[in-house]
């Protein structure tokens, strides 16, 4: 056993650091450092995508045959850690790490040849049409229908999707739709690619509790979708959806984010005074910080153990669910510490949900909108399969004898 990176891995890390040093625009890093990237504009995100694409690192998860870097799990982990430490914008995952693996495994050659280069060049911005108002944790109960037109050339889509992250920027949406109502729920679902400019689609923003418009409702009324946009076979969509969800859970532990967050908490607590001393010297506060740090150190090692196994070719199963639960609990605890640190200055709030609206708020610590972040990140334990669903998976797998 050796807890340090190999020489090769270290060399890779140096290469990554040099690249980030040279190519990461300072204004983007500042936005991410200040507000976790929540005020990044569409242009900001596309600019970062283009920089990565030029380097060939936009899609480290893709196989080389599709233009990816085909990094192994340890390399991807190093990349994610360094990106978190350098405050890079996150790569918008819906196309690159969710849809693309599905297309590469189940899509036709024509679909891959057409959609993948457009994705890399930034021609398309994808969003995800999975959840519905009545189908959250119970995703298979989804009701949006797709019925083939009489001439067999189109599907006619009707229904409503919700929680569509960054759907306001998207021109394409991949959707799970019901194509057969008369069979078992999971066996009547298909996977469709839909142009958001098609008549009959309406996107309505959902304002979250911290005032941000990051998610949307998408309504479909008699939307005509060419049959060529069906991925794989009709009524096999559930298989593809589950495959996609395993990709949604990459970097699920969020070790880099937690580490960066914890460093920020410590930095802020050194300047904040409580009872005539820096807050970090207060035993009650220091104990809270230490407790999270201890948990994070252990989870980082758990994460590396699982990653090493994955790099050696074994697919993570129940461990992904474990990392989701532990990782989000730790991140949320760090968000809680950050808001505590700011004291009364956690209360001010930029009421208008506009870009850069935090300017002008009093913030003597330079803490940023820590309370808004705390509330926003309550989503971490809800989305991508809620922590309750993950616990159900862990229990089902470990107590029924099958993995």
């Amino acid at each position, binding site marked *: 056993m050796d807890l340090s990176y190999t020489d090769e891995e270290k060399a890779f890390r140096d290469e990554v650091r040099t690249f980030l040093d040279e190519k990461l625009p300072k204004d983007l890093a500042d936005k991410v450092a200040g507000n976790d990237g929540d005020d990044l504009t569409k242009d900001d995100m596309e600019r970062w995508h283009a920089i990565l694409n030029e380097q060939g690192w936009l899609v480290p998860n893709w196989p080389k045959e599709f233009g990816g870097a085909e990094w192994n799990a340890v390399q991807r982990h190093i990349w994610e850690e360094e990106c978190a430490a350098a405050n890079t914008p996150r790569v918008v995952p819906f196309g690159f790490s969710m849809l693309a693996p599905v297309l590469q495994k189940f899509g036709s050659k024509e679909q891959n040849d057409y959609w993948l280069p457009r994705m890399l060049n930034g021609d398309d911005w994808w969003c995800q049409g999975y*959840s519905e108002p*009545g*189908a*959250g*944790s*119970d995703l298979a*109960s989804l009701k949006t229908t797709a019925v083939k037109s009489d001439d067999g050339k189109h599907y006619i889509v009707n229904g409503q999707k*919700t*929680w569509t992250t960054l759907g306001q920027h998207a021109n394409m949406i991949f959707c799970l739709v019901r194509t057969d109502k008369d069979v078992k729920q999971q066996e009547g679902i298909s996977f469709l690619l839909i142009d958001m400019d098609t008549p009959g689609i309406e996107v309505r923003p*959902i*304002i*979250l*509790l*911290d*005032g941000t418009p990051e998610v949307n409702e998408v309504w479909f009324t008699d939307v005509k979708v060419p049959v060529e946009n069906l991925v794989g076979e009709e009524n096999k969509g559930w298989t593809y959806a589950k495959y996609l969800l395993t990709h949604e859970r990459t970097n699920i532990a969020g070790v880099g984010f937690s580490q960066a967050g914890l460093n920020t908490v410590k930095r802020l607590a050194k300047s*904040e*005074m*409580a*009872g*005539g001393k820096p*807050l970090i010297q*207060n035993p*009650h*506060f220091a104990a*809270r910080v230490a407790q999270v740090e201890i948990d994070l150190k252990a989870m980082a090692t758990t994460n590396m153990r699982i990653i090493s196994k994955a790099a050696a070719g074994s697919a993570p199963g129940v461990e992904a669910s474990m990392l989701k639960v532990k990782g989000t609990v730790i991140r*949320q605890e760090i968000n*809680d510490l950050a*808001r*505590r640190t*700011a*004291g*009364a*200055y*956690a*209360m*001010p*709030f*930029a*009421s208008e949900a506009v870009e850069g609206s935090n300017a*002008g*708020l*009093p913030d*003597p610590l330079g803490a940023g909108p820590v*309370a*808004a972040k*705390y*509330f926003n990140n*309550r*989503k971490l*334990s*809800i*989305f991508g399969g*809620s*922590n*309750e669903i993950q*616990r*159900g998976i862990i229990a089902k797998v470990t107590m029924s004898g099958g993995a």
Partner: protein
Amino acid sequence: MNFDLTEERQMLQDTLRRFLRDRYDTATRNKILDSDTGMSTDIWNELAELGVIGALFTEEQGGFGGKGFDIAVVFEELGRAGVVEPFLDTAVLGGGLVADLGTDDQKALIEEIIGGTCQMAFAHGEPTSRYDLNRVQTTAKADGDDIVLNGHKAVVVNAEAADHIVVSARESGNIDDEAGISLFLVPADTKGVTVQGYALLAGGRAAEVMLDDVRLPASARLGKAGEAFAAIEARTAAANVAQCAETLGAMDTATQLTKDYLMTRKQFGRPIGTFQALAFRMSDLLIEMEQARSAVINAAGHLESDRKSRESNVSATKNLMGRAGRLVAEDSIQLHGGIAMTQEYELAHIAKRIVMADHRFGDTDHHLERFINLAAA
């Protein structure tokens, strides 16, 4: 022992609950939150007419309540409905300090406050004071017959709307000394007072208040020179009772919403509340609710006790409310799922109220430490 409310308080509770249920729904509040002033004058006046402000002052002060349980009854209802109007700042803090310390001339304000025509704020905290009541850097210096204030007051809730601001300033001693702090009743339009306002995450507005050579007559002082600390501490205790009761009301709303949602939301063909994993968490929230209710009773019931017993109960309650509140807010959101993350759902505001209460008058950790120190003293 008797845990029933008096007839008067019961009537007040019933009246308030009915009024707010009819008049203060999510859409109404969201409109108020989006407004420039962050409050509704109509609601303010109507609640004043119902006696909400009068209930926060004693008979000799011109009101009809003013005790811990009066404060608790009023604020539990305000919290239950998520009312964002600044009753705490105008009546319990600003008005309360004038009532406690003022001369007859100064106390003439109380009638206006009770009538709803005068807004107040208490400017005490500073950028580096965090939750320490004794840390005052703002100075008050005599200049002939006048007093001149200089300093920066942090996150002064309701400062923009206030007609008068009660300002703490140091006349003698070191920055952390309890002795040497005085209070001044400052008309908001006094030259040298600058108010830089902003909205608050849990509703309402606050401001940084800058005092640059603010010249006041000596008659603006509230109480004796350098001896205001005890009054500040006692009023902060009353404010904590108010705020903890408000949090209790909000927690009650959060648990009710959550219980209703668990019984109506269906996934996998059944109400999600029938899943034991969720049902048990709901049970834990209800257990914590009973703890919270008792904690608020402890604090309210000791507000008129001697200092040590009052403060120790206040700190115990604030600590418990911080812990129970966080659990209720976070688990209510989690048990709902995504819907609770949306601004237009009632729980969003309620959860923010519960959690952000931990950022005023001392947080969970501050009061844990204070409880330990009070017990050791």
